[in-house]
């Protein structure tokens, strides 16, 4: 498993289950809180989103994701691991574009830290989405 923070296309079920299996070997962990962001088939002016095309400033994503990870680990003393995977390129409606995986000794910090990490990702990761509609027109978000 050599994904750092960006993956081309959707975050696959394989990526997700690899993280689950990896974490499930550590016997000092009591809880994992996982967030999966999924592409919605939103409607604007009667047109339905069929996919999102994500573009990213890859180098800066690595730097910012690393900062988020370090911040969470220092802020939440019970948290042992923070993993982040974001899609680039095309992700269709119903597919996963973001995985945040936080492991801690106890449930409270796992869940709080995961919520916080998701907020920080939204604010600080240099990633942009372009909604692509069923008629192939598009809209920048």
């Amino acid at each position, binding site marked *: 498993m050599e994904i750092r923070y960006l993956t081309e296309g959707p975050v696959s079920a394989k990526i997700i289950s690899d993280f689950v299996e990896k974490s499930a070997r550590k016997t000092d962990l009591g809880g994992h809180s996982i967030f999966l962001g999924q592409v919605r088939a939103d409607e604007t002016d009667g047109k339905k989103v069929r996919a999102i095309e994500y*573009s990213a*400033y890859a180098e800066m994503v690595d*730097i910012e994701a690393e900062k988020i990870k370090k911040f969470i680990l220092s802020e939440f003393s019970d948290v042992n691991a923070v993993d982040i995977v974001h899609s680039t390129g095309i992700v269709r409606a119903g597919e996963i*574009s973001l995985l945040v995986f936080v492991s801690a000794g106890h449930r409270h910090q796992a869940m709080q830290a995961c919520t916080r990490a998701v907020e920080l*990702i939204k604010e*600080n*990761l*240099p990633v*942009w989405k372009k909604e692509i509609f069923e008629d192939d027109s598009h809209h*920048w978000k």
Partner: protein
Amino acid sequence: MEVKVLFFGVLAEVSGTYFKHYREVKLLSDLKHRISDDFPEIVHYSFRISVNNEITDNDILLKSGDEIALMPPFSGG
């Protein structure tokens, strides 16, 4: 001396390019003027600027090899 300017998100579409090199530019403020001369439409969009992966609001003395990015509001997730 030469710096590289990256255009992200909608700005890549508006400028019609992902990046462009600029030569002999001293200050970030000078560079901004030259970019808006080349791509006048981008002034209609809001964006932040990073120099070598650090977002900055200040005017900065540029040096050769600097990477400047024009970044619309992030919309990942």
